[in-house]
Structure formats: C-alpha cells, structure tokens
C-alpha cells in the first residue's frame, strides 16, 4: 500500500492501527502527522484507536525490556581478548597454502617437520611390531602342539636331548 502523505482515509488509518498499534510513535514517520491530525478530527478514528488499545496495553506492561546483568556484559566485553575469537579471525584469513608454508617457515630442517616425521616413523614401527607379535606366538604354539601330538618326533627329540 502506497501511503498518501497528504490525505488520510479511515481505511488507511485502520490499516496503520492494525499494523503498528495505537502509539503514534510507532506509526510510519511519513504518515504520522497526517494520521494524528485525522485522529483529532475523526470520531470513527478515535473509536478505532480505543478498540485497539487493549493489546498494546498488555504488550507494553508484560514485556518491559530488562537490562542485561553485569556478568553477561563483562563476558561479551572480553570477546576481543579471547583467544578463540582471535584465532578464528586468523583462520578466516589463512589460505591452505599459507597453512602449509606455516609448517615449514624456514629452509632445511625445522622442529615441526622433524617431530611430524618422527611421529610417523614411530607409528609405522609400532604398527608393524604389534602386528607381527601375535603371529610369532601362534607359530610357536603350533610347533609345540605338533611335537606333542607326534610320538616319532617325541622320540627323536629325546634322542637329540
């Protein structure tokens, strides 16, 4: 609806009340003066305003904004000093290439690279030894069982001893 700034009609006044309520401070600024003038002159407009005032009264009294407490204010005030906010800002501006380069800031060996390589080698070594050990035990157990079950071999074994 395009408001007519010069002439207020009852239809438009009703629409304003329905949308913005009865307080002229909330009415569209472009139409406020005209609507107020219209209200002063029109008994129908005054009747409309009176009928609509109930909801505004309930909303105004029930939902008065409460001020935030000091603890919360302090928490928000520390945002610029918090590491996560600073690091998030940093991460946002870091490209993948910059991240990779940051791991190798100088030519030659660097502590980060050496630590990474050592961790990798240690992981592979642990993985391989953990994998071989059960197999070795199985082989030893199988050999013992075979010797125990075979009388000829037991005899040879005694002679050997």
């Amino acid at each position, binding site marked *: 609806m395009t408001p007519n700034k010069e002439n207020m009609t009852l239809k438009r006044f009703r629409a304003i009340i329905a949308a913005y309520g009865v307080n002229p401070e909330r009415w569209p600024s472009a139409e406020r003066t005209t609507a107020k003038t219209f209200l002063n002159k029109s008994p129908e407009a005054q009747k409309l305003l009176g009928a609509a005032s109930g909801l505004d009264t309930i909303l105004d009294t*029930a939902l008065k904004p409460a001020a935030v407490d000091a603890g919360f204010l302090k928490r928000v*005030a520390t945002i610029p000093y918090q590491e996560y906010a600073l690091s998030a800002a940093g991460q946002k501006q870091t490209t993948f290439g910059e991240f990779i380069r940051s791991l190798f800031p100088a030519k030659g060996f660097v502590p980060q690279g050496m630590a990474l390589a050592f961790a990798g080698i240690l992981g592979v070594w642990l993985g391989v030894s953990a994998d071989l050990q059960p197999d070795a035990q199985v082989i030893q157990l199988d050999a013992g069982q075979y010797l125990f079950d075979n009388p000829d071999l037991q005899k040879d074994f005694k002679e050997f001893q």
Partner: protein
Amino acid sequence: MRRVATTSAESGGDVSGLEQESDETLALLIGKGDKAAFQTLMERHINMHVSFAERMMGNREEAEDIVQDAFTKLWIHAEKFDPKRAKFSTWFYRIVINRCLDKKRKKKPVSLPENFEVADDRENPAESLTTRQRKMQVVKALSEIPERQRTAINMCYFEGISNREAAGILNMNIKALESLLSRGRKNLKSLLEGSD
C-alpha cells in the same frame, strides 16, 4: 594473517571520543581491530538485542548466548561490513535474526506447557503475580505465532525500528511488512483473549 587487536588509546585515538561516533564508524574501527570501538558499540546495542532475542526465543539464557555469538561474529567479521550497503543496525539485526532462526531450527519443536514459568532469576521480587502471569501469557502467545510475524512485531513494535528499515532487514516491501504485522497482531490478540 592474524588481525592485531588494538584500542583507540593504543593507536593514539581518544577512547572517550568514541561515544560521539556513529555505529557505522565504530563498526569500521572494529574491522581494524579496535577494542575500544567494540566496547562502545556493544554497550550501545546489547540491551536491545538481548530483549529482541529473548522475545524471539522466549528464553533469556538462549537470548544471551545468541547475542554473545553475534558480537563474536561482529568482532571476527567486522571488516566485511560495508556502510554503503546497509546501516550497521540493519546488518547486525540480520546476524541476530539468522542466529535465532538457526537455533530454532536445531531445537526440537516443543510447545510450551500450560503452567510453564518464565526463567528469569533477575525478576523483580515486587512484581505482582498478575503481571508475572500476564508476562507468561504474552511470551507463550508470541512463541505460538509464525516466525516471520513474531520477527516483524518484535522489530516494529518492541524495538521501534522504522517500517522501511524493518522491511529491508526482512527483505520485503512495506506492504508485505504491514500485512505480516496486522496478521501477527490479530493472532496475538486472539491467543491472549483465549488465555484469559
């Protein structure tokens, strides 16, 4: 590159002078890492945004979380703010509204029970039982109207944002905004009459 946080005082500026600066100037200073500008802008806006988020969520704790997140976003992304494209208040309201909608989407939709209490340990002890009951009814009614109607009423009625700015924030024309407001108020009225 990590943004280096500074204050106006550290950079030779006058902290007290920031009070006179517009929201847009402060936001641009925050984009350069100015902590004092952040403090000034935060103190200027925090009350209304917490009230706004509380009416959107029906819960003070969630409202505070949302506003804290929004201010964290402001600190991190302030350099993206372009005063030629939008007023600071429009830009920041969008952040808060989007955060409210995200949180609502993640939340399991649960309608408020008949006898629910508004959680607020800062409540005035002198507040009468009738006022408290009325407050509960209004919070409940607000939570039951459609999201867009609630957002429009929250901005135009409670926050006093102009219809033009509210329409801009909601990305709609003024006629559509007025239609949302009218339907929202009508729904609220019938819900509140039903709860009497």
